C-alpha cells in the first residue's frame, strides 16, 4: 500500500507541469464549450443527441 501511495503523486515540480496543464485545460474547455454550450447552429445540430444525453442544457 505504501508504494501505491507514493505513485499517486507526481514528483515533477509544478513549474515543469504548468505549461502542459494550462494547454490541456484550455484545449479541453474549448472542446467542451463547442460540444456542449456553443450556440452555433451547425455545432448544435451535430452535437444534438450527445448534448441531450450528456445533460447539457439544450434548445
Amino acid at each position, binding site marked *: 500500500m505504501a508504494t501505491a501511495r507514493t505513485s499517486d503523486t*507526481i*514528483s515533477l515540480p509544478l513549474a515543469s507541469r504548468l505549461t*502542459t496543464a494550462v494547454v*490541456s485545460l484550455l484545449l479541453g474547455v474549448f472542446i467542451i464549450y463547442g460540444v456542449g454550450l456553443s450556440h452555433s*447552429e451547425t455545432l448544435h445540430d451535430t452535437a444534438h443527441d450527445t448534448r441531450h444525453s450528456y*445533460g447539457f*442544457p439544450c434548445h
Partner: protein
Amino acid sequence: MLVKYLLATIVAGLFAGILLTPAMYVKNVPLILHAEEYENAGGEGHSHDAPAATTETVPAAVAPHEHAEEAGPELPFGRFGNTLLINLVAGAGFALITGAAALFLGRRITVQNGIYWGLAGFFIFNFAPAFSLAPELPAMPAADLATRQAWWLITVVLTAGGVYLIVLRDQIWAKLLGFVLIVAPHIYGAPEAEDLTSAVPPTLASEFAVSTLTTNLFFWVVLGTALGWAIQNYASSELEA
C-alpha cells in the same frame, strides 16, 4: 511540454468516446427519437398511453420551437456518424480537462485510482448539475437557454472546487467550505420554465433522466480507468522528476 501525457489523455478520451456511443444507443437515443415524435407531430397519430387531452394542450407551447423537422446545418455524417464524432471529441475534451486537473494538483492518475477520477468527473459534470437541472428530452419545457447554461457552468465549477476541498484537503474548514460550494447552486435553484406543460409523457422523461445518468456514469468510469492505463503505459517516464 509533456507531449506524451497530452497524447495519452487524448487516446483515453477517444476510447471512452467510442464506447459511449453504443451505450447511448441502448436507451438514450431511442428516447430522444421517441420524444421528437411528440415535438414534431404534437402528439397525434400515436398509439401510446398518453391521454389525448395532455397532448392536445401542447402544440401551442411547442409550436415556436425552431427544431421541428428542420433539415439542419449539421455535419454530413448522418445522425449516428455525427453523434460518434461528437462523442469522440467530447471524450477527448473531458479527458484533457481531467488530465489537466491531475497535473495542476500533482496527482497521478493510475489504473487503480482511475475509477475515482472518473467518479469525480461524473459527480462534477453530470450528477451535480442533473440534481437540479434534470437531463432534458426534446420538446420538454425549459427556461431560457443562456440562463440554464450559465447555471450549469457555475454549478460545474463550484462542484469541482467543492470536490477538491473535500477530497484533497484535510482541514475541517476546507471540507465544510467544499460542502457549501456543492450545495449552494441547488439552494439558489436552477432556472425553471414558467409553464411546465409538456408534450413529452413524464414516463419518457424519467426514463431518460435515469438512462442518461447511467450511461454517463459508465462513460466516466471507462474514461477514468482508461486515463490511468494510458498515462501509466505511455507517459509515466515523463512524470518522473
